[in-house]
């Protein structure tokens, strides 16, 4: 870490630490959601940016995490950590079992295969009401209790969620920077060449899919403890789509991009909703505009702008 990184990292951290105390409560709430969505979006970003896989099934794992937490704490009266672990274990096992065959598909087929998976899961969440409470949902999920410190306000929960998010970012960063990351990139850019270098594509893709599911499940558990109430409406195909938008809008290959994407997905609908019911249309159009005009996402577009400005500065000077 050189001094230039510190130069922008320190102010960012200060803003991050002060933010929940200065903004109104509803915004602190949105910031908590930004953290939760960052965790969920990180996994999709890994798949999209480093494996070229469009995952439209994240709401499935998000739902599994949330229901595991809800069921373990409310129905069985177990400590919340059990819910986190159970959700993660179930999600990773499912991702492995389903990932193995489904990741043999490529391109559109894979994207729509995962979309079908999400549709199946959302139908099952609805049907298995003995487990999920169906549309009535499960209420009264306790707030998290960290060694006697109750995280019952958005401003408190904010720090917990974001520390989890930073930990996930560190995991993602290490994964990308490691030997695995290099293998992933070679696989994305030329799968034939990678296979010729004896990289087991199938195992590698499954591995990243499992990591993605783990992040999804963690985000789901965090969501359950924040909202105190989970029901089928939160885990539909629409949610899978909005999770996919996080890396798409922010930029799939950059980790800060995921945060930008998560901010976009949580704050933009809220800001637009001041304009009345028309906000959903505007959100859809904003997405179209990003896809058409900025194929590398907001962070990519910003990077290009900076390069262009730097080049102009050089030619003038």
């Amino acid at each position, binding site marked *: 870490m050189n001094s230039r990184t510190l130069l922008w990292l320190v102010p960012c951290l200060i803003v991050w630490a002060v933010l929940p105390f200065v903004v109104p409560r509803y915004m602190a709430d949105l910031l908590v959601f930004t953290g939760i969505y960052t965790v969920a979006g990180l996994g999709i970003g890994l798949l999209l940016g480093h494996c070229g896989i469009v995952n439209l099934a994240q709401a499935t794992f998000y739902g599994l995490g949330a229901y595991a937490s809800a069921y373990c704490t409310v129905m069985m009266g177990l400590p919340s950590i059990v819910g986190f672990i159970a959700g993660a274990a179930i999600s990773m096992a499912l991702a492995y079992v389903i990932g193995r065959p489904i990741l043999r598909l490529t391109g559109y087929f894979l994207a*729509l295969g995962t979309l079908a998976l999400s*549709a*199946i899961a959302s*139908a099952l969440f609805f049907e298995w009401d003995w487990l999920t409470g169906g549309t009535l949902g499960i209420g009264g999920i306790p707030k998290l209790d960290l060694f006697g410190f109750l995280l019952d306000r958005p401003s408190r929960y904010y720090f917990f969620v974001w520390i989890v998010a930073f930990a996930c970012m560190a995991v993602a960063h290490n994964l990308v920077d490691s030997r695995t990351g290099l293998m992933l990139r070679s696989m994305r850019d030329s799968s034939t060449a990678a296979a010729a270098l004896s990289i087991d594509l199938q195992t590698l893709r499954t591995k990243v899919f499992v990591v993605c599911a783990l992040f999804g499940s963690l985000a789901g558990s965090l969501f359950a403890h924040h909202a105190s109430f989970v029901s089928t409406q939160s885990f539909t195909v629409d949610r899978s*789509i909005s999770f996919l938008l996080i890396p798409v809008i922010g930029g799939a290959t950059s980790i800060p991009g995921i945060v930008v994407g998560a901010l976009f997905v949580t704050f933009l609908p809220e800001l637009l909703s001041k304009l009345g019911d028309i906000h*959903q249309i505007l959100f859809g159009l904003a997405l179209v505009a990003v*896809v058409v005009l900025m194929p590398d996402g907001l962070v990519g577009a910003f990077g290009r702008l900076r390069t262009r400005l730097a080049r102009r500065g050089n030619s003038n000077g």
Partner: protein
Amino acid sequence: MTLSLVLQALFAGVTNGIVYALVGMGLSAIFKGSRVINAMQGEFAVIGAMTTVLLLTKAGWPYAAAIAGGAVAGALVGAFIEVAFVRYMAKKSASEDSFLLLTIGLALSLSASILYFVGRDGHLLPPLGGEGVLIVMDAVIQFHALWLIAIGIGATLALRAFYHRTTIGLSMMAASIDADGAATTGINVARMRTFTFVLGGLLGALGGILVTPLIGVDYQLGLNLTLKGFAAAVLGGLTNPLGAAVGGLTLGLVESLAIIGISSSYKDVVAFSVLIVIMILMPQGILGRAGRRGG
């Protein structure tokens, strides 16, 4: 399980299957002509059906004219999307995924527009051929379902004739098989792609209009139809619009057999599981290589 129940399920399966087939045929026509998976294919159905509803009830058009209006609306939206978005992105050689995301964004915008401008209520159209029913061995079939099946088969045959007999259809096929080759023989490849979207919009709208007397159309219908249409297209081999017709029928029948065999609430679960399994085991579709040649 009685015979009449099975018969009833078969009729329901064929009826739904034809609707999936029409949506799937549109999706597959667009994929064939532009290599774009259109995730807003179901929205074409919603646009077609909603326009017909509004022309009929608000503008007071006669039913036949309203149906024509709905179909034209679907075709126009298809043309608009190609000219306004796909053409620009194709010029910048955007990736497969970008096109998918584009159409997802358009689907979100359109479904939100329907919610905003029309409201969240479902709307029904009057059934073609009146309210009457036909009773075969205690199984009840609405006259409308018979019309739907007839029109669906007619549209499939017309599509086949269009691709094989008309100059435009042959040019579209040529442009999709070899764009450079087609361009050297004087075919306007970009325009053919526009026509492809017009065709996709038309077929989607037709599917939507035909299903609306059976299921009310609302802003949420699009996504489900897109998924079913995609399943139909994949079953048929994706690049073959006529294969999608076979795929749609298969899907409809599998679904209705699942309803009598398991439970109606697992209909979608079965349909989408079949989709995933077929994609993995039979990537060429259920017709195999033979299906690729046709259409």
